[in-house]
C-alpha cells in the first residue's frame, strides 16, 4: 500500500454515511477503479456499515420498552417537576412520616434488644465459630492492607471448591486450585478488555488430591491465615453496625524475637501480631478482623534497614506522619458476606466474551532445580547492576548486606523533593530486591549449597566470562555469565574457579 492509498483509505473511511462533494466522490471512484486493494477496503467498510445498522436494528424494541416504562413511571409519579425549593416543601409531609416511622423502628429494636437480653446472652466458643466458618460454601469480604503509608483495598471471594477471586480497582484475579496437575489463574483487565490465562504445571500429581484428581476440600481454612490459629479468647460484647457482636482477641506472645515466622505471619511459629475478631452473634460467623503488627511501629526496620528518617529533612519527626500509630491495625477484613456467591461466572476461569485472551507459557515442571536457582541469582545480580550502574559486587553476599545495598538505594531514590513518596518508592523497591534475593538465602541456608562467585572485576555484557556457578546434587554445574545468561555444563567453569 503506497502513501496515496493510505490517504485514500482515510478519505474512504470519512465518506461512509456522509454526503461528499461530487469532485471528492469522483476522485475516490477513480482511485478505487484502478486500485483493487482500496476497492476491497471500501467494500469491507460498506459491509461493516450495513452490519452496524443491522446490529442496531433489533434495539428498536429495547428503545420502545424504555419509552413505555419511563412514560408510565412519570405518569404514575407522585411528585411534580418543581424547582429545588418547591421539591423540599412538597416533601415535608413525607419527611415527617419517614422520620416518625424510623423513630418507631429504632425504639422497637431497642426494646427487642432489651427483651432478648443481648448484653447477657451466651457467646459461642471461638472453636465453634471456626467450625461453622469452615463448613460454609463460600464467602466474600473486603481486604484492606497497609503498606508504608498507603492502603491497598480489594474484594476477595473464596469457595469451598478451592477457587478464589480478587477484585482490585483495575483488575481481577481468579485462581482455581482444584486440579492435581496444576493451578490455573485468570487475570482480567476490564479497561483493556484483556484476559491472561496462566497455568502452573506440577511435575508430579498433587499429594493433596484424591483419587479422582480433586483437591481434598479443606473448607475455607485458608481464608485469612488468622482465624484458624488457636488462642482466641472472648473479650467483650458490643453492638456494631446494628448487630450484636462477640469480640475475641489473640496474641501477641511474650517472646517477640523476630523470626521467619514474622515475615510469613500465617505460619504458627510465633504470635507476634495481635488479632481481633468480631463475630456476629446471630449468624455466629466472622464479621470483621483486624491485625495489629508490632513491626509497623515508627522505629521498625524495613528491608535493607530503610527508615523513614533517612528520607526526612534533619530534625523532622517520623512518628504519626507516614507510619501507623502503635495499636493501629495494618490489615482489616470486613464486609463479610457468607454463602453469598450464587453467580457461577463469578468464580469461573473462562475468559469472558469480548476479551482478548493471552496465554502465559507455564514454567517447565521438569526444569532442574539448579537452573531455577541460578536464574534467581542472575535476577538478583541484575537488580544490583541496576543500582550500582552496571558494576558487579565484590562478593555475592553484598546483595543481601544492608550496609551495602542501603546506600545504593538512597542514592537512587532520595532526591529531597517529596520524602514520603521517595520513601514509599524506595521501600517498594527494597521489598522487591529482598524478594529476588531469596534465591541466595534458600541456597545457602536451606539447601546448604555454596555459591561460587568471581565476578568482582567482570565487565557486564561479557557472554564468555563465567562469574558464578552452583552445583546441586547430581545435576550439572549451572553457570551464570557476565551477560547474566545461565547455562548448564558437565564441567566446572575455568574462569570462575576459585
Amino acid at each position, binding site marked *: 500500500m503506497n502513501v496515496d492509498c493510505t490517504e485514500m483509505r482515510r478519505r474512504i473511511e470519512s465518506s*461512509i*454515511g456522509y454526503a461528499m462533494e461530487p469532485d471528492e466522490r469522483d476522485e475516490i471512484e477513480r482511485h478505487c477503479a484502478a486500485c483493487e486493494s482500496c476497492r476491497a477496503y471500501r467494500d469491507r467498510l460498506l459491509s461493516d456499515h450495513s452490519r452496524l445498522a443491522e446490529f442496531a436494528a433489533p434495539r428498536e424494541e429495547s428503545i420502545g420498552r424504555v419509552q413505555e416504562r*419511563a*412514560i408510565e413511571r*412519570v405518569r404514575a409519579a407522585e411528585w411534580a417537576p418543581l424547582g429545588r425549593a418547591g421539591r423540599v416543601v412538597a416533601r415535608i409531609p413525607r419527611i415527617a412520616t419517614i422520620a416518625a416511622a424510623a423513630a418507631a423502628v429504632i425504639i422497637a429494636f431497642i426494646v427487642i434488644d432489651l427483651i432478648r437480653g443481648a448484653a447477657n446472652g451466651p457467646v459461642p466458643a471461638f472453636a465453634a465459630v471456626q467450625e461453622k466458618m469452615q463448613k460454609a460454601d463460600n464467602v466474600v469480604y473486603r481486604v484492606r492492607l497497609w503498606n508504608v503509608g498507603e492502603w491497598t483495598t480489594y*474484594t476477595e471471594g473464596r469457595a469451598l471448591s478451592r477457587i478464589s477471586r480478587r477484585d482490585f480497582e483495575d483488575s481481577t484475579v481468579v485462581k482455581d486450585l482444584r486440579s492435581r496437575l496444576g493451578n490455573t489463574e485468570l487475570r482480567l483487565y476490564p479497561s483493556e478488555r484483556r484476559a491472561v490465562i496462566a497455568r502452573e504445571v506440577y511435575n508430579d500429581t498433587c499429594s493433596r488430591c484424591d483419587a479422582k484428581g480433586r483437591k481434598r476440600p479443606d473448607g475455607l481454612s485458608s481464608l485469612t491465615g488468622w482465624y484458624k490459629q488457636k488462642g482466641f479468647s472472648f473479650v467483650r460484647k458490643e453492638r456494631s453496625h446494628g448487630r450484636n457482636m462477640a469480640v475475641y482477641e489473640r496474641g501477641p506472645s511474650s517472646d517477640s524475637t523476630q523470626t521467619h515466622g514474622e515475615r510469613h505471619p500465617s505460619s504458627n511459629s510465633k504470635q507476634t501480631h495481635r488479632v481481633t475478631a468480631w463475630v456476629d452473634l446471630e449468624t455466629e460467623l466472622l464479621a470483621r478482623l483486624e491485625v495489629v503488627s508490632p513491626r509497623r511501629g515508627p522505629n521498625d526496620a524495613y528491608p535493607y534497614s530503610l527508615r523513614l528518617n533517612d528520607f526526612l529533612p534533619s530534625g523532622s519527626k517520623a512518628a504519626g506522619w507516614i507510619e501507623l500509630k502503635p495499636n493501629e491495625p495494618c490489615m482489616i477484613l470486613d464486609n463479610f458476606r457468607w454463602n453469598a456467591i450464587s453467580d457461577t461466572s463469578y468464580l469461573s476461569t473462562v475468559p469472558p466474551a469480548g476479551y482478548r485472551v493471552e496465554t502465559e507459557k507455564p514454567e517447565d515442571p521438569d526444569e532442574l532445580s539448579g537452573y531455577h536457582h541460578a536464574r534467581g541469582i542472575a535476577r538478583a545480580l541484575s537488580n544490583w547492576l541496576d543500582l550500582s550502574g552496571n558494576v558487579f559486587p565484590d562478593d555475592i553476599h553484598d546483595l543481601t548486606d544492608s550496609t551495602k545495598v542501603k546506600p545504593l538505594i538512597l542514592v537512587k531514590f532520595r532526591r529531597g523533593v517529596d520524602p514520603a513518596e521517595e520513601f514509599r518508592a524506595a521501600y517498594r523497591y527494597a521489598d522487591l530486591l529482598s524478594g529476588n534475593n531469596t534465591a541466595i538465602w534458600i541456597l545457602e541456608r536451606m539447601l546448604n549449597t555454596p555459591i561460587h562467585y568471581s565476578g568482582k572485576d567482570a565487565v557486564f555484557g561479557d557472554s564468555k566470562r563465567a562469574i558464578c556457578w552452583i552445583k546441586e546434587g547430581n545435576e550439572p554445574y549451572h553457570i551464570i555469565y557476565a551477560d547474566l545468561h545461565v547455562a548448564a555444563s558437565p564441567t566446572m567453569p575455568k574462569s570462575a574457579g576459585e
Partner: protein
Amino acid sequence: MGDGPDRKLVEACMRGDREAYAGLVRLHAGRVYAVCLAIVGSEADAEDLAQEALVRGFMKIASLRDRDRFGPWIATVAGNLSRNFLRQRANQARLLSTQADCSGKEPESLSDLRRALWKLPEQHRIPLMLYYFDATSTESIAATLGISPKAVHMRLSRARGELRKLLENMEAHDER
C-alpha cells in the same frame, strides 16, 4: 432530530404537564439508550439505566438552564448514571455474563462485530453507537457530546477505520 422543538415541551413540562415530558421521552429515548449501552455494554442494564435517566430527567428538569438543550442534558445525565453504575458495581462478572448471553442470541457475524465494538475506546464508541442506534445526524451527535460536527465526523471516520482493523485482526486470529 433537532433540539429546537424541545423548548416548548420543556416549558410545558416545567408547568407540570406530564404528557409534554412523554413527548420528550419519545424524542430522546433512542439517544439515551445508545449512550447507556455504549458505556455499560449490556442491553438489559442499558434499558434499566435509560429508563432511570429519563425518570430522573423529569424530576430534575427544573435545573435545566438552556431549554433548547434537553437532548445533550439528558444524554449527560444518562452518561453519568451509567458510569456511576459501572463504578459502583462490585461484581464485574455480572456484566461479563450478560454480554456473553446477548452475543449468544446473535448471528456469528454480528457477535464478532459486538466484540470489536467493545474494543473501541469510549470516545469513538459513543458517537458510533449514537449514529447507528439513534439514527442521528452528526450535528445532533455533536450537540449531545458537546463537540463540533467536524470532530464528530472525524471520530466516526476513525472509529470505522479502527473497527475494520479490529475485525481483520479477529478474522486473522480465527483463521490461525
